């Protein structure tokens, strides 16, 4: 190997080693930067309210920094002459290698070139690259580990977050959740049933969009409340418009009073009653009689149980008494039309002296009797419902039983279309239709159709009459659809109010559920007071509740004070005559204050006064329009907020 080759080999080996060494150091420097970055990010996260995503971002950036450091070191390849000059510098070779590579490679360097190369080759033999560039931990590693340890320690420290920030976070989360629920509710509502009226559909859709907007981009609480109040106003307006239809009021009342499981028409109800009577037997067993029978049977069973473990002499009298009772019970049940064969079997077992068998038979009889009792009670209920259900079209319309009325009209249409009506039946039909014209007054065009049907029937035109009646049925169906729209609007309105409460009180959607109805505790059970308002708000007409909040003016005899005790008129010792004091409002005197439980907003304000005033006025107007302020104070509240400037 020539001197030049020896020098070049050493220089190339050194260059390769330097590349690895740079990559190694670069990686450690990147690691140090990553550690510092992580520490800074963690420190900032612990101190400042920055999003948590900063931490993984810092981690990923740190890893990339390590990689970048390694690659930066590895990427740079240097020329052999540069490596030679570096070796000269590090090994104090007095520029021998650099000069040798430069001069020795030149053609015709002559004797001087050979001298320089040999001199450099002699020096390069002493170069130990591994010793010169050891892959040991660089200085950066000494700093990285303490910084990482510091970061790990910092990880256990709790984050500092100001109360204002936490409040804002809660508000934002509450608004987001409220928006999500609002959107979900309206979406489900639209999936279940598309509103018939376009305005209703648009209103419900707008509520859904508002919910999505709040969920996607939660604004400030004031803005969210303002948006919700505006939307509530809009939906309420829509709801009021629907509520102006008197027909809907009647239908709504009827629908609310009806049992959910009750059949819609009188025919169906009658069929149900008949099937139940058939099951109970030929004679209708009264629920009271069955109840009495059950109590006696229970006594007989106890008597039989008492007989267990006693001697035969003592049991003889009891057996006779029990046999009489069982005979009497068997006779009564037969009389009621509900024979109980188990009683006969019990009698036979008693005669055989098998008390255990008697008890078993009596238990079977008791169970049968209980089943009969339940059926009798259900029959009573159905009969009561049948009493409420209108018997003919007029009554059905009067009571707002639209579905029953539609069924009656459909029946008439079918009869007219069949064309085999007797004159008596035709007259009965005409009478029923004529009778229903007046009650049909509030139902839009229904009376017109009924009149037309009557006219056609009188003219003997059955087909047009049937058509008119069908039109009346359609009109009623349309009203039912509108009622369903009103129900949807009411549900949407409830959801909006609930959303307002959630946002206002900064609570989750589930937590503010019980606050929707006044008089109910958060658990949902009605509290004490003069009745509850549990079911008094309908889908169309929400009765004003403000009057109910103040019960002080209501005279209730059952609540009259009775002295020192409420256990009747007790004897009061002489000289201890109670003084009865009854509070009442003094007209013209100072108005008493009433503490209203409502939205309590705490925190520090950081908005401009004009903005705060406008927000307060807006909220006050919303509260006044929603009847949240007692009427007695509405004027004062309005004046107060109007005067704010």
């Amino acid at each position, binding site marked *: 190997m020539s001197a030049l080759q020896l020098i070049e080999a050493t220089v190339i080996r050194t260059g390769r080693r330097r590349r690895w060494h740079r990559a190694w150091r670069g990686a450690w420097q990147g690691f140090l930067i990553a550690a510092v970055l992580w520490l800074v990010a963690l420190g900032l996260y612990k101190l400042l309210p920055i999003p948590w995503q900063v931490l993984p971002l810092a981690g990923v950036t740190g890893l990339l920094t390590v990689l970048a450091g390694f690659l930066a070191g590895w990427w740079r390849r240097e020329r052999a002459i540069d490596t030679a000059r570096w070796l000269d510098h590090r090994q104090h070779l007095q520029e021998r290698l*650099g000069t040798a590579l430069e001069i020795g490679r030149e053609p015709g360097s002559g004797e001087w*070139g050979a001298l320089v190369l040999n001199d450099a080759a002699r020096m390069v033999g002493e170069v130990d690259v591994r010793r010169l560039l050891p892959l040991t931990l660089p200085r950066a590693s000494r700093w990285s580990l303490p910084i990482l340890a510091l970061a790990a320690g910092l990880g256990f420290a709790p984050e500092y977050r100001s109360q204002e920030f936490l409040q804002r976070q809660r508000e934002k989360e509450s608004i987001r959740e409220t928006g999500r629920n609002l959107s979900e509710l309206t979406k489900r509502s639209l999936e279940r049933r598309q509103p018939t009226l376009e305005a209703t559909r648009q209103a419900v859709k707008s509520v859904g969009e508002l919910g999505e907007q709040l969920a996607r981009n939660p604004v400030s609480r004031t803005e969210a409340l303002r948006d919700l109040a505006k939307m509530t106003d809009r939906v309420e307006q829509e709801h009021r418009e629907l509520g102006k239809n008197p027909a809907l009021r009647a239908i709504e009342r009827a629908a609310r009073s009806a049992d959910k499981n009750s059949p819609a028409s009188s025919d169906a109800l009658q069929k149900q009653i008949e099937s139940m009577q058939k099951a109970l037997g030929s004679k209708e067993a009264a629920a009271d009689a069955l109840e009495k029978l059950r109590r006696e049977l229970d006594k007989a069973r106890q008597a039989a149980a008492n007989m267990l473990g006693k001697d035969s002499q003592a049991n003889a009298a009891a057996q006779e008494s029990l046999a009489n009772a069982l005979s009497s019970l068997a006779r009564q049940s037969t009389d009621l039309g509900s024979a109980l064969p188990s009683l006969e079997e019990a009698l036979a077992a008693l005669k055989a002296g098998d008390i255990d068998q008697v008890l078993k038979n009596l238990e079977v009889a008791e169970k049968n009797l209980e089943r009969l009792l339940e059926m009798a009670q259900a029959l009573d209920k159905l009969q009561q419902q049948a009493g409420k259900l209108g018997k003919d079209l007029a009554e059905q319309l009067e009571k707002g039983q639209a579905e029953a009325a539609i069924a009656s009209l459909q029946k008439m249409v079918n009869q007219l279309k069949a064309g085999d009506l007797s004159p008596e039946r035709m007259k009965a039909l005409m009478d029923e239709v004529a009778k229903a014209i007046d009650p049909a007054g509030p139902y839009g065009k229904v009376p017109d159709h009924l009149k037309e049907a009557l006219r056609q029937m009188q003219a003997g035109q059955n087909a047009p009459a049937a058509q008119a009646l069908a039109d009346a049925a359609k009109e009623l169906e349309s009203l039912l659809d509108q009622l369903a729209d009103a129900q949807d609007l009411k549900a949407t309105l409830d959801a909006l109010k609930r959303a307002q409460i959630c946002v206002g009180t900064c609570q989750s959607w589930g937590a503010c559920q019980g606050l929707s109805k006044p008089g109910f505790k958060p658990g949902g059970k009605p509290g004490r007071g003069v009745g509850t308002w549990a079911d008094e708000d309908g889908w169309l007409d929400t009765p004003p509740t403000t009057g109910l909040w103040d019960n002080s003016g209501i005279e209730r005899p059952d609540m009259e004070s009775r002295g020192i005790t409420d256990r009747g008129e007790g004897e009061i010792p002489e000289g201890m005559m109670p003084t009865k004091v009854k509070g009442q409002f003094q007209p013209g005197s100072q108005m008493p204050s009433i503490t209203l439980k409502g939205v309590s907003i705490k925190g520090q304000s950081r908005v401009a006064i004009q903005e705060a005033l406008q927000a307060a006025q807006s909220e006050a107007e919303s509260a006044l329009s929603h009847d949240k302020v007692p009427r007695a104070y509405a004027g004062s509240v309005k004046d107060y907020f109007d005067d704010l400037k």
Partner: protein
Amino acid sequence: MSTQEQITHFRTIFSALRDEVGKIIVGHESIVDNTLVAILAGGHVLLEGVPGLGKTLLVRTLGEVLDLSFSRIQFTPDLMPADILGTNLVMETPDGRRLFEFQKGPIFAHLILADEINRATPKTQSAMLEAMQEHSVTAGGALRRLTEPFFVLATQNPIDQEGTYPLPEAQLDRFFFKLLVGYPTAAELTEVINRTTETAKTELRRVVSREQLLEMQLLVREVPVASHVKDYAVRLVQATHPKTETGTAMVSQFLRFGSSPRGAQALILAGKVRALAQGRFNVSFDDLEAIALPALRHRLILNFEAEAEGVTTDHIIAQVLKDVPRDAVAVGA
């Protein structure tokens, strides 16, 4: 003789010269070394120091150990250029004809000792310019070449002394090195006393002939210099240029003029001599740094601010050496 043998011979002679001079001159090794370096590089030397430090003795000693013709010119205020260069005299031939004949001055020698050069007037000092640069003399309308090798070894007293005239910048620049002769140490002074107050007399031998010296000068010029080493010399010189991009902050603040290209030439040539003297075949950064002060100090012209603050050219060169990196590639790695 092969190059290797020439180099060995060079080192032997250099070492012998040092030893011979050392017999007379006590201490001042760096002064002796640098003087030898300048002579082998073919340059002139200006020795500066207060009287009595052995400047003249050093040059005289060199004149004795070098087998060269030697002239000594004592510069005085009344010294005229013709006293140095020579003059045309009217001579009468045997046949009675009269004609002008050039009478050579003391400049016509190989080794000139210009003693206390700054005591002559600038006019007389300037008489040396052509001789020092062109190695020739123009007198009486005729150009006369000086025989090679030609060296001027001048001594001067510090310029703030009485009766001195500062050398013109042009002449200063023609000196290869400017060496500052300082006071001897206690040991050196003791040795000086021993040698000069006793009867023993030191005999000097001539170490190198004129031809050998010329060969050595040629050998010096063959020493290879790597491009990055040359680049360093260039950067050093450029760094002394005030108010330029390459000039350092201190240079711009305290210098009126920086080094001429002769400074770079001096650095490289002196570096080559030093490398050979140390047994190397190439010039290193260390060589350049070692001779930067004598090669550059007299080429930098201080401004008023520097003189007012007592900043010397040595301070500035030291700072330049610190500011200019040797090799960006090597150091940066």
